[in-house]
């Protein structure tokens, strides 16, 4: 019986602690502030991307607040974890939009979570800007109409797939390609589909892995015996780094082509610099850029979090400034006013390039393809997908 009482007490304490934390956050709200929501995958399967983005969001907001906020109002940030679960994303988006009354929501990192959050923000009429949801259907609904409250900063899959296919034929003179992707990820399936559609050469093989694997030797042994010109790996740096390492060690010498998911220096650490040659990937952002804005971001990110920012954090950082510009242009922080300004947003200049939103709320950006030799960035090529 005593144990039972102790258990209940522990539970009650936890619940009370939860209430208190909630209250504190609600009390700090005042009229002179702009409320923004941040919802990312802080725990669970994709928490590496979620944390990189959440870090950049709070960094950007600290910077804005230090410089006097938006139109003199400080930003108040409401930050939640979606646990890498889609239903939690729907719940958190509703909480931000209705209870916390934010002007705009930034996040989540992945397409699935973003798609789950969209019905909630549509009902509450609060704009949501996802830094890195790439699936084509994120910003358009089933009938092909634009989702009125959803925006993204990253490339959409089809846009990137077209550019990569084009790059493979024109710059790499590839006649044949093999695709090695994660078929349990919509990122990979979306990219492979558009690559296949737009590649004028022949896709001679399609192989799969799953995100939690680290041993690709079986599938690479099989690939090694095929005759092909380029290996396309639509995936993230965690697996791509290992694939590059294992492929090069095995003696697969063909160029390896990748999407923006390669954009993290860990890729080179994982593969070993010596193995990262003839690797090409699309990029929004380069840590070697001379742009003082980019360098400033890299410096303050490293100072705050002790690691180099990646593509995900750069996109999330820009998402905050996109929202800031929209609020300034609207001259109002009511969610619908912000949303109208977002839809009209043009000539935004961020660290991932200058862009405007098109009619489907996708950024109009050019694609830069980075070439890596011995782990160093040696060349960049701009490809226009049209």
């Amino acid at each position, binding site marked *: 019986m005593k144990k039972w009482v102790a258990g209940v007490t522990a539970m009650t304490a936890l619940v009370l602690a939860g209430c208190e934390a909630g209250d504190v956050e609600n009390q700090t709200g005042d009229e002179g502030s702009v409320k923004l929501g941040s919802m990312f995958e*802080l*725990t*669970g*399967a994709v*928490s*590496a991307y*979620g*944390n*990189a983005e959440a870090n950049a969001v709070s960094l950007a907001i600290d910077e804005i607040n230090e410089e006097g906020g938006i139109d003199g109002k400080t930003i108040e940030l409401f930050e939640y974890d979606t646990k890498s679960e889609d239903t939690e994303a729907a719940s958190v988006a509703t909480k931000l939009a209705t209870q916390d009354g934010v002007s705009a929501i930034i996040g989540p990192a992945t397409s699935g979570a973003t798609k789950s959050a969209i019905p909630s923000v549509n009902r509450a009429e609060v704009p949501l800007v996802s830094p890195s949801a790439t699936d084509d259907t994120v910003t358009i609904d089933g009938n092909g109409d634009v989702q009125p409250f959803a925006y993204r900063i990253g490339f959409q899959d089809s846009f990137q797939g077209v550019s990569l296919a084009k790059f493979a034929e024109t710059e790499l003179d590839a006649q044949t390609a093999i695709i090695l992707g994660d*078929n349990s990820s919509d990122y990979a399936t979306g990219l492979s589909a558009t690559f296949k559609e737009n590649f004028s050469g022949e896709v001679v093989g399609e*192989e*799969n*892995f*799953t995100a*939690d*694997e*680290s*041993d690709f*030797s*079986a*599938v690479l*042994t*099989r690939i090694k*015996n095929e005759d092909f010109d380029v290996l396309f790996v639509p995936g993230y*740096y*965690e697996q791509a*780094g*290992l694939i590059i*390492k294992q492929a090069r*060690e*095995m003696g697969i010498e063909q160029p390896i082509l990748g999407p923006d998911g390669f954009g993290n220096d*860990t890729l080179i*650490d*994982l593969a*070993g610099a010596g193995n990262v040659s003839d690797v090409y990937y699309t990029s929004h952002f380069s840590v070697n850029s001379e742009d003082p804005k980019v360098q400033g971001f890299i410096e303050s990110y490293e100072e705050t979090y002790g*690691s180099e920012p990646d593509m995900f954090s750069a996109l999330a950082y820009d998402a905050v400034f996109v929202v800031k510009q929209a609020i300034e242009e609207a001259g109002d922080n009511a969610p619908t006013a912000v949303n109208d300004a977002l839809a009209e947003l043009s000539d935004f200049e961020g660290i991932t390039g200058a862009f405007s939103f098109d009619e489907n709320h996708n950024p109009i950006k050019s694609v830069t393809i980075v070439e890596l030799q011995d782990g160093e960035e040696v060349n960049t090529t701009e490809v226009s997908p049209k």
Partner: protein
Amino acid sequence: MENLIQQLINGLSLGSIYALLALGYTMVYGIIKLINFAHGEIYMIGAFVGYYVINYLGVGLIPALLLSMSFTAVLGVIIERVAYKPLRKSSRIAALITAIGVSYLLQNGMIYFVGPEVRSFPQVVENSLYTIGSFQVSKMQVLIIVTTFILMAGLQFIIQKTKMGKAMRAVSIDSQAAELMGINPDLVISFTFFLGSALAGAAGVLVGMYYNSINPMMGYAPGLKAFIAAVLGGIGIVPGAVLGGFAIGLIEVLISGYGNSMVRDAVVYGILIVILLVRPSGILGKHAKEKV
């Protein structure tokens, strides 16, 4: 044919990782009939300990292995004492949920304190390829396969030849009767966790070294696969765990190499179910008569 041999080598090295992990599952299950879901997370912690001691103390592979094994061994014993021991008299499913809780705690604790991002593991052993005829074996592959066999042999020796091993076997057959014979079951169970967790720590360091990649979520998928391997080989039986690990590794590699890699996991589970139906206690399991 050359290709097949190459794929078999790939399968053996993948399988030996599953086998190393499966050993820990099988030992704990054998003695207290608990599916220790936190085992994969102990393996993850082992990899991180290896990462930190190599990076910050600058030690080599063998000391890193030993340090990591002792750390995880102690951690395993602490987890057993704090979380599992109070539940020894209650239902097994309650203990299972506790194990899941411990697994959440370790994984999310690591995400919270060290961050969820993937890290590259410091390379203290220069990896090199040996080419024999037309196929290749890497030094790390040899190292992993050899370590697995050494650890399995050592484990088998402890269980079959030492006094503690005898006590472990006694407790696993009938804990009460063992207690009447003067064996302290608590001590024996703690020792089992000590051994199993040390093996997980070793696996963590070896995997970190082999794949050059660690992160707080790395324990989940191999943990599940290793448990399946343990069941396949006959849970509670040491050689069975190794056999199961190699079997799963080989099946996976052969499907990826010759079949459709899209349905690989489905086929692995399918084979597992069929084997369980034909031999419900696993490949090496003895069919126990039910007591009425």
